[in-house]
């Protein structure tokens, strides 16, 4: 199956271990990717400070139009922020004809137009619904043997439409983890926001949010936390020492992408494919112990 992969700005920098692991895993599962030609940033969740709503819509409509012009594949947006920006604008344009005309009159600056024929998907959606857990299980050569994982979904990867999972109590990530023979721990804070795009400027306030999430995971027995968003990964991983300093805690729990766990369970190379060496809190020992290496 062919898809557009819209990896966005973060996956080339702070989220490089997401992109590096996602590609070999998805290729092993028979997926093929194309890049949207000359794509631009989605605007993420903070552009409203400088841009009005129409400008942010145009930003995303340009990507949709460039994709539609090339082929009629679904777009996979692994970054949850890209996903929510794009799926939202896509729905609005599909459902509102006058908005579509208005946006198209602006896209015409570059001879572009978007007719609304593309579907925007999250990677969890595609893995669960297009590939399926049975198919995934068939690729598992190094089962994670009951490794206790807290599957952190975050807020933007399922919302606002809940197209493939419940917006209040998502289960898809846990099911994907089970397919790897990991044991997802109960984790009520799996949909609590980590501070998202305003973490950096509001760090003093957001450290508390992340502390609560880490605490919930650890107290439910998690040895490792999995995520599907570069912002979640960054906020959960990079500030643990600050949190420890501020709150007197002693968090030191690795944060990995779901696709990194998949690469490990698929018996792939821990460095080249799972890209574990990019993680700042090293997950190697825990994962090697789980797969019996």
């Amino acid at each position, binding site marked *: 199956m062919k898809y557009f992969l819209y990896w966005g700005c973060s996956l080339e920098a702070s989220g490089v271990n997401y992109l590096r692991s996602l590609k070999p895993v998805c290729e092993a599962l028979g997926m093929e990717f194309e890049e949207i030609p*000359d794509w631009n940033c989605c605007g993420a969740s903070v552009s409203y*400070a400088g*841009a009005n709503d129409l400008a942010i819509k145009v930003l995303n409509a340009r990507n949709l139009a460039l994709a539609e012009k090339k082929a009629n594949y679904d777009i996979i947006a692994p970054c949850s922020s890209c996903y929510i920006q794009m799926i939202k604008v896509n729905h609005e344009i599909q459902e509102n004809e006058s908005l579509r005309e208005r946006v198209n009159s602006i896209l015409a*600056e570059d001879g572009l137009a978007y007719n609304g024929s593309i579907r925007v998907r999250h990677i969890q959606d595609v893995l669960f619904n297009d590939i399926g857990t049975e198919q995934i299980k068939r690729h598992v050569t190094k089962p994670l043997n009951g490794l206790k994982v807290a599957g952190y979904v975050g807020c*933007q990867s399922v919302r606002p439409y*809940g197209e493939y999972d419940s917006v209040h109590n998502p289960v898809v990530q846990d099911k994907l983890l089970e397919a790897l023979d990991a044991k997802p721990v109960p984790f009520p804070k799996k949909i609590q926001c980590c501070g998202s795009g305003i973490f950096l400027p509001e760090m003093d306030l957001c450290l508390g949010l992340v502390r609560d999430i880490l605490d919930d995971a650890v107290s439910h027995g998690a040895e490792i936390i999995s995520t599907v968003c570069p912002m979640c990964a960054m906020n959960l991983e990079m500030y643990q020492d600050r949190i420890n300093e501020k709150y007197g805690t002693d968090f030191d729990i690795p944060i990995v992408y779901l696709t990194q766990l998949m690469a490990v369970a698929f018996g792939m190379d821990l460095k080249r494919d799972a890209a574990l*060496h*990019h993680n*700042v809190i090293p997950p190697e020992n825990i994962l090697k112990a789980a797969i019996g290496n």
Partner: protein
Amino acid sequence: METNTSYDPSFAREVFENVDSGEEIKMCMQCGMCAASCPLREHMDYPPRQIFSMIRAGKRDMVLNANSIMMCTSCYTCQVRCPRGIPVIDVMHGLAHYAISKGILTRKDTAVFGREFWQQIYKTGRIDEKDLSRRYFFADGIITGIKKSLQMARMGIIMLLHGRMKILPEKKIKGIKSLRSMLDKAMQTGKGGSEV
């Protein structure tokens, strides 16, 4: 309490006409679901529900200076819980944009960060994380910039060592010129206005 104040329609009209998604609050039934949803609610002066009733009561200054409109983390919890299906987040972002465009920077760091983010998209079409943080840190001048950078330097070095920072600066996308003219047009004709 703001709920006892008599209805003053002029500010509400201003919001409906000039703030992106502003008209959406007409359907609000003041149930408070959204107010209980914000992750940073403990730090907010007026949660969304109260902001919306203050708009109806014409409390212009209080609304535009509220810290809450700039403390939205974009978690969408409000939107999936609101019984009236109001896109609360879009209204909060619309209000923040409107306030910032009037020069009100109640949460200065967040407003500056968001503005730098947007300006970088306008400049290159994409975001360069390291350049964004540098511009954000130094937006307040060189001294504050050095102080903020030093606080974050350790983390920057760690990320660099783990290959999680791009070494080369982000190149402009090929269609940057036409992207800019699209964005200019959207900023000129969009409801939320352009005075940034």
